[in-house]
C-alpha cells in the first residue's frame, strides 16, 4: 500500500472505538432504552395476504388496560417510508395501519400495555372481522394478467393520484442506439432468462422503536434507522408535527443491510401509540415478526440478450427487468433506474434497450439489500458475459478487460440521473494479481474431470457506486453535514447525524479528521447526537458513509484548520500569512504542533491556541458544513472463487477465495477486509442457500418466520481464513477524502456471479435460477446423465 504510507493515521490498524462497549454490553441499542412508565406495544397483523376488514371490537383489549389504535386512529395519508428520492420520483401507497391489508403481516391495529404479557393478551383479545378475503397474487407475471385481483387501484406520485394498471406500480424504458441493427450485425448473440431469490436481511438487530412524549407536544424517538433525519421528516409529514418538535436520537445499530434506509413501519406505529397513550411506548419486533412481515430483498426476473463481434467487442445489450416488489413501494421506482445503471455501467454494450417493470404482489414489501439490485444484475450479466466469451472462444478474463467500463468512461452511479466520469480504476491490477493467486490459467476444464468431486474456478467482476452524488441534482437526494468544534483544551467534538451500522464508518471519519488536523483519534470525540443538534445527512446507504460522509467531515476539519492557523498566527507575530503554517502531531508533547517549516523556533501547540482563544475572547474554533459530492465513483471488486461440487449430493463447498477490491485509499484495512469477508458470506448465501418461499394458498412464508428454517452459512460453511485472500488495489480517487471510495456493497456484488461461474466451470452446467441449491444441482447432473 505505497499510496497510503504517507499518511499518519489513515491506513493504520487500530482497535475499534466501540469494540469494548459492544463486547461488554455497554453499548445501548434501541431495545435497551427503558423509560419509567413506558408501555410495551404489539402490532395486530393481518392473518391474510389480501383482505378487507369489516370491523374491530377492541372493548375486551381495553378492559385489560391496553391502549388500542386501529386504522381509524391514524392520519389518513398515503406515504412512502423512504425519502431518499425527490418528491417527483416517490410513489406513495402505504398507511400506518390499514383496513385493506395486502400481505400477511400488514399492520391493522396496535396495542400498548404495561408489560409485553398484557400487551400480548390484549392483542389476542382484539376481535377483528373481515368482510372479504381474496386469493393472494404471488407471482408478478400472474399479477400483470388483466384478470388478476387488483392490489392497488390508485396511488400517489408527488401529490397527484395515479391509476395502477394490472398491478404494475412503476415502469421505466430506455434505449440508446439502433439495438436491432446492432444485434443483426453481431456474430454471437446469447439470450437468457434469470430468476433471483427473495432474501431476508437477517441483520443482527430486529427492528425496534421507542417514542416518548415531551412537555409542549414534542416527541423523542429512538429507533433502528439508517437515517435520523429522514425518520424525523417522515414522522413530521405523517403526523403533522413540526420538525422542531420531533427529535430522533441516535442509537447503536446492529446492522441493517438496507432494511432501514426507509423508516420501518414499527416507528410510525410506536409514534401513533405514544400520541394516543400520552406515555412512552416501545415496540420491539421479535425475530419472527422481522422475518415474517418486515422486510425482504427485491426479487427480480430478467431477460438479458448480449451481442458481440468476432473481434471480442460487445455491440448490443438488451435488458428486461420484472421486479416482484411485494405489496408496497419503498424504492421500487428508483430501482428500475438503478438496475439499468448497474447493467449499463458493467460493460460498454454499444447499443442498449431496457424495459423495467415494478409489479405488486401480495407479499412482504421489498427493499434495498446490500447492493440495491446490483448483486442480482451482476450475477445475470456475469453469467451471460462468461457464455459470450466461451462462444467467442476467448478467455473470460480477457473478454472482461476488453469490454468493461473503466478509467475515463462514463459511470451511472444510481441510474440515468447520476452520471460520473471514472477517475480511478484498479480492475486491471486486481484481475492480474487475482488470476495469479487463484491459478486462473490452470483452472479445470469441465469435460476433463472425472470422479465424484469436481473443482471449478469462477471469476466475476463488479462494482458499486460511492454514494449518489453528482455534478447535477437528479432524482436522488444526497448530501451530508458535519459540525466540528475544537474545545478549549484542544480536543475535538465531532457532531454528525450519519449512522454507523456497525461497520466502523465513524471510526473512518475520525481517522480522516485526525489526518486533516494532526490530532490523534483518541482526542476526537464522536458526539452522541440527534436530529435537534445535527445538520442534515440523507442516510447511510449506497456505500456513501466514508466517501461522502468522510469528505464532509474532512471539509469541516479543513475549515477548522483555517481558523486554527489564523489564531496561531496571532501567537506567532513573525508569520504574515497563516497559510505558511503546518500542523503535525508531536508524540512527545502529546499535542499538535503548529509551526513554520525550516524555522524550529516559530511554533505553538494546538492546546495553547485553543486555550488562548478562550481566555482572550477570540471565540470558538468551529465549523458547520453541508456537503454534496460532485461525483459518485465506482469501487471495483474482482472475485475469484474456487468451489468443489459433490456430484452425488449436489453440495457445493467453497474451497478458496481471492477477493480484489479497489476502494481507493484504504482508511482502515482490517475493517475493509471485514467488509469483504462479510460480503462474501452474504453473496455465497445468495448463490446457494437463501430464499423466502411462500405458501401458494395462504401467501405466508413457508418458514413461518422461524429462523430454524431460514438458513445462512455458519463459519464452518465458509472458506477457512487461510484460504481467503483479500487484495487491495493501489488506487487514489481524486474526489474522495484522502483518495477513498466506498466498499460495503462492492464487497458483495459480484460474489454470487463468481460462485455461479465456478459451479459452471466444475460441471459444465449453468443455472439461471437462484439459489443454486443441492437439489437443483443434483437434478441437473442426473438430467445430463440421462
Amino acid at each position, binding site marked *: 500500500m505505497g499510496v497510503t504510507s504517507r499518511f499518519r493515521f489513515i491506513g493504520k490498524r487500530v482497535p475499534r472505538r466501540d469494540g469494548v462497549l459492544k463486547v461488554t454490553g455497554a453499548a445501548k441499542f434501541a431495545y435497551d432504552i427503558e423509560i419509567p412508565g413506558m408501555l410495551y406495544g404489539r402490532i395486530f*397483523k393481518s392473518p391474510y395476504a389480501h383482505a378487507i376488514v369489516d370491523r374491530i371490537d377492541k372493548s375486551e383489549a381495553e378492559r385489560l388496560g391496553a391502549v388500542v389504535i386501529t386504522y381509524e386512529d391514524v392520519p389518513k395519508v398515503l406515504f412512502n417510508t423512504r425519502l431518499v428520492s425527490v418528491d417527483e420520483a416517490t410513489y406513495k401507497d402505504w398507511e400506518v395501519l390499514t383496513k385493506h391489508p395486502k400481505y400477511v403481516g400488514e399492520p391493522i391495529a396496535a396495542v400498548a400495555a404495561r408489560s*409485553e404479557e398484557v400487551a400480548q393478551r390484549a392483542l389476542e383479545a382484539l376481535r377483528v372481522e373481515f368482510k372479504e378475503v381474496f386469493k393472494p397474487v404471488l407471482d408478478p407475471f400472474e399479477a400483470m394478467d388483466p384478470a388478476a385481483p387488483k392490489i392497488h387501484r390508485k396511488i400517489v406520485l408527488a401529490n397527484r393520484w395515479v391509476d395502477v394498471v394490472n398491478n404494475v406500480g412503476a415502469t421505466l424504458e430506455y434505449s440508446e442506439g439502433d439495438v436491432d441493427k446492432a444485434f443483426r450485425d453481431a456474430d454471437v448473440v446469447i439470450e437468457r432468462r434469470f430468476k433471483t431469490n427473495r432474501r431476508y436481511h437477517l441483520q443482527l438487530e430486529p427492528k425496534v422503536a421507542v417514542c416518548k412524549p415531551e412537555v409542549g407536544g414534542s416527541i423523542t424517538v429512538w429507533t433502528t434507522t439508517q437515517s435520523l433525519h429522514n425518520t424525523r421528516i417522515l414522522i413530521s409529514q405523517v403526523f403533522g408535527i413540526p420538525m422542531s418538535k420531533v427529535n430522533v436520537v441516535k442509537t447503536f445499530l446492529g446492522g441493517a443491510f438496507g432494511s432501514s434506509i426507509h423508516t420501518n413501519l414499527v416507528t410510525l406505529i410506536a409514534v401513533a401509540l405514544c400520541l394516543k397513550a400520552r406515555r412512552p411506548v416501545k415496540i*420491539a419486533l*421479535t425475530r*419472527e415478526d422481522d422475518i415474517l412481515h418486515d422486510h425482504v430483498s427485491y426479487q427480480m426476473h430478467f431477460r438479458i440478450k448480449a451481442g458481440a463481434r468476432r473481434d471480442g467487442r460487445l455491440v448490443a445489450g438488451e435488458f428486461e427487468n420484472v421486479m416482484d416488489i411485494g405489496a408496497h413501494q419503498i424504492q421500487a421506482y428508483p430501482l428500475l433506474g438503478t438496475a439499468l445503471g448497474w447493467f449499463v455501467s458493467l460493460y460498454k454494450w454499444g447499443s442498449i434497450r431496457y424495459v423495467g417493470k415494478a409489479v405488486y404482489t401480495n407479499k412482504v414489501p421489498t427493499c434495498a439489500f446490500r447492493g440495491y439490485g446490483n448483486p442480482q444484475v451482476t450475477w445475470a450479466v456475469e453469467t451471460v458475459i462468461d457464455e459470450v466469451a466461451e462462444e467467442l472462444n476467448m478467455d473470460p478474463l480477457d473478454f472482461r478487460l476488453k469490454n468493461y467500463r473503466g478509467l475515463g468512461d462514463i459511470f451511472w452511479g444510481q441510474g440515468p440521473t447520476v452520471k460520473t466520469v471514472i477517475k480511478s480504476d484498479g480492475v486491471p491490477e486486481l484481475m492480474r494479481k487475482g488470476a495469479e493467486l487463484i491459478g486462473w490459467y490452470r483452472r479445470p476444464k469441465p469435460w476433463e474431470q472425472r470422479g465424484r468431486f469436481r473443482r471449478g474456478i469462477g471469476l466475476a467482476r463488479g462494482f458499486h457506486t460511492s454514494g449518489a452524488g453528482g455534478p447535477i441534482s437528479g432524482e436522488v437526494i444526497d448530501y451530508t453535514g458535519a459540525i466540528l468544534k475544537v474545545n478549549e483544551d484542544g480536543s475535538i467534538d465531532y457532531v454528525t447525524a450519519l449512522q454507523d451500522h456497525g461497520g466502523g464508518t465513524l471510526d473512518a471519519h475520525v481517522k480522516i479528521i485526525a489526518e486533516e488536523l494532526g490530532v490523534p483519534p483518541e482526542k476526537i470525540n464522536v458526539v452522541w447526537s440527534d436530529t435537534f443538534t445535527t445538520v442534515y445527512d440523507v442516510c447511510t446507504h449506497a456505500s456513501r458513509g466514508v466517501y461522502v460522509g468522510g469528505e464532509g467531515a474532512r471539509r469541516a476539519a479543513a475549515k477548522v484548520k483555517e481558523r486554527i492557523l489564523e489564531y496561531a498566527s496571532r501567537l506567532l507575530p513573525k508569520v504574515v500569512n497563516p497559510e505558511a503554517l503546518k500542523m503535525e502531531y508531536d508524540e512527545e508533547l502529546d499535542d499538535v504542533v503548529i509551526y513554520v517549516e525550516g524555522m524550529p523556533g516559530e511554533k505553538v501547540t494546538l492546546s495553547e491556541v485553543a486555550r488562548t482563544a478562550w481566555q482572550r475572547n477570540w471565540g470558538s474554533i468551529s465549523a458547520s458544513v453541508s456537503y454534496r459530492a460532485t461525483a459518485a465513483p465506482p469501487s471495483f471488486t474482482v472475485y475469484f472463487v474456487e468451489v468443489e461440487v459433490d456430484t452425488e449430493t449436489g453440495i457445493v463447498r467453497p474451497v478458496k477465495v481471492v477477493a480484489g477490491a479497489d476502494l481507493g485509499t484504504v482508511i482502515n484495512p482490517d475493517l475493509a477486509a471485514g467488509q469483504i469477508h462479510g460480503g462474501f458470506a452474504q453473496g455465497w448465501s445468495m448463490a446457494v442457500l437463501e430464499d423466502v418461499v411462500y405458501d401458494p394458498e395462504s401467501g405466508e412464508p413457508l418458514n413461518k418466520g422461524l429462523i430454524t428454517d431460514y438458513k445462512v452459512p*455458519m463459519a464452518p460453511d465458509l472458506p477457512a481464513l487461510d484460504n481467503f485472500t483479500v487484495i487491495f488495489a493501489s488506487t487514489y480517487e481524486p474526489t474522495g477524502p484522502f483518495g477513498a471510495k466506498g466498499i460495503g456493497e462492492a464487497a458483495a456484488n459480484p460474489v454470487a456471479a463468481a460462485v455461479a461461474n465456478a459451479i459452471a466451470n466444475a460441471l459444465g452446467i449453468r443455472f439461471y435460477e437462484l439459489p443454486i441449491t443441492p*437439489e437443483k444441482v443434483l437434478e441437473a447432473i442426473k438430467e445430463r446423465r440421462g
Partner: protein
Amino acid sequence: MASRVRPSPINTMNTHIIPVRFEYFAPKTLNEAVDLLSRFRGRAKVLAGGTDLVVQMKVGRVRPEYVVSIRWLRELDFIDTREDGLHIGALTKLRRIEKSDVIRRGFIALYEAAKAMGGVQVRCMGTVGGNLCNASPAADTAPPLMVYEARVKAVSTRGEREIPITKFFKGPGKSALEPDEILTEVMIPYQPANTGSAFLKVARTSMDLAKVNVAAAINVREGVVRWARIALGAVAPTPIRALKAEAYLAGKELGEDVIARAAEIAASETRPITDVRSTAWYRREVSKVLVKDALRIAYGRAVRG
C-alpha cells in the same frame, strides 16, 4: 374471488415471552415428578433442556396447562459403564455426550451425531432424553441408538419398563411413552469386536436439522459381513431401520456393487416428503449416498478395529 384460506396464527406468536399460561413445577425427586405426571395425565409437558419445548411454547404450537421441569433431578445426568452396557441418563447434555471419551471410543456414531447437532450453546442445553422424547423424525441421536440396538427406560407411578429404541418412535412428535411416564435412561449394549459404525448427515448448513441422517453399524469376520444395521432419519414419519438392506448385506463381502445395491434397497425403504428443508426426491437420492458412505466408513472402522 373469495378464498377459504385459513388465517395465519401470526398474532399469537411472541417469542419475547411465553405467550401461554401454564403452571410450573420443579420436583426435586423422580418420585415427585412421576406423581405430578400421573396427576396431570396428558395435560403436562416435561421440560428438560428446553431447546424444543420452550421454542414450541413460544411460537404457540404447544400449549400445556402444566410444565414439569426435571432439570433438578441430577440423578438422571450420568454416563456409566456397567457390565451389561453403557447407561446414559436422560438428562445428560448433548455436549457431555460429545465430550465423553467412552462414547467417542465405543459408540462413535453417537458421538458424531451429538457433534452434528445445533450449536455449542444448544448442545449445552439440550439433553439426549429430550432429543428422543421430542420424537422428531430428524432427531440426530435416534439413528445411532437404533443401530446400536439401545433400549430406553420409562418410569411412572405404575413402575418401570424398558422399550427397545426401535419401538420407541410412533410418528412425528409421538413416542411410545405414556403421558404419565418419564424417560430416565438410555442403555446401549457393548458392541462385539470387529464392529464399526458411523453417522452422517446432510443439512442446509453446518448448524441445521437434517435433510437426511444415516447411521450404520457393521460386524465383520474374515472380510464377510456377519450383520449390518442401517438407520435413517428425516425420510419417514419416524426414524427407521432399513431391515431389507440389512438382510441383504448379511453374509456378503462388502464390494462396491454390494454397497450400491444395499443403498438402493435402503432408499426403497424410505418414505420421504417434500417440505421447506428439501424435496422427497432429493432425500431419497441422498439416502443412497449417505448409506453408501456410512457403510464404507463403518466397514473401515470394523476391519481396522
